[in-house]
């Protein structure tokens, strides 16, 4: 049915823009700070999406993942994203 296509794994990373406050990351950092050996100077929490995309080739898969990320995975008001792979 999918003549000449295969499934590619692509990873999308979504993070809050640097100017946006990340309460989760900051709270994690503070909680870890109290535990010897777990201290970090900074923690930012983001999201990872592992997609499997059917496409003719890697470039098409990547382009599809970018569209998905832009239109569905990242909230442009708050977040940036990067696409890695396939």
């Amino acid at each position, binding site marked *: 049915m999918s003549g000449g296509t295969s499934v590619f794994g692509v990873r999308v990373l979504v993070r809050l823009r640097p100017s946006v406050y990340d309460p989760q990351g900051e*709270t994690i950092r503070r909680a870890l700070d109290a535990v010897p050996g777990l201290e970090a100077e900074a923690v930012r929490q983001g999201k990872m999406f592992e997609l499997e995309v059917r496409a003719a080739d890697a470039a098409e898969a990547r382009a599809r993942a970018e569209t998905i990320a832009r239109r569905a995975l990242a909230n442009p008001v708050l977040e940036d994203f990067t696409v890695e792979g396939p």
Partner: protein
Amino acid sequence: MRRTRFAVLVFPGTNCEGDVLHAIRTVIRQDAELVWHKEGSLDGFDAAVVPGGFAHGDYLRAGSLARFSPVMTPLAEMAASGRAVVGICNGFQILQEAGLLPGAMLRNRSLTYVCRDVWLRAEDRSSPLTAALDEGEVLRIPVGHAEGNFHVSDAALAALEDRGQVLFRYCDAAGRASGAANPNGSRNHIAGVRNERGNVAALMPHPDRAYEPALGGTDGVRLFESLARWNAS
């Protein structure tokens, strides 16, 4: 008979401590005191309740950051000594994250917070939450959580069931467990579990919201009676 002294733990972000305290004092007329999470000792307490809320905002994962609080050391000791340690809602998640109870919670299948009455069927009586219940007893008690979707591996699930560690299952008013009656997608409709020994127990629903007729239900009283009975025996 000496009254049982309950420690009701308070983490930053806990918000059901008052409800639990009030229920213990007025429903079963036992002693209860709030204990701040920075305490390093639970000396003088016979039992502990970890109440609901959003410890550390539930940031990272519900209940996860509470594990690093000083009070968790004496709490683990209390559990090891065989005294009763009980979790409700966020308290359940905290006890799981601390490794005192099996499994972990996923987001509800609806991906939303769910607050409403549910029906529960009691499955096992050997725990501080179920000692006074009849097996198969059906109770109506509210839930209020976003991450109550109980998960364990297949092997762990089979072991849990084998050893009778499942305390409560979501069911309908007639006591039939089913997907439709399950508010969060929990495996095997599990709403509450205990450890192997039976002294550490927790559930997602809130008996601390169903202990007076004015609140729309009194079935939570049965769980507090269990607490009293378990500690008296």
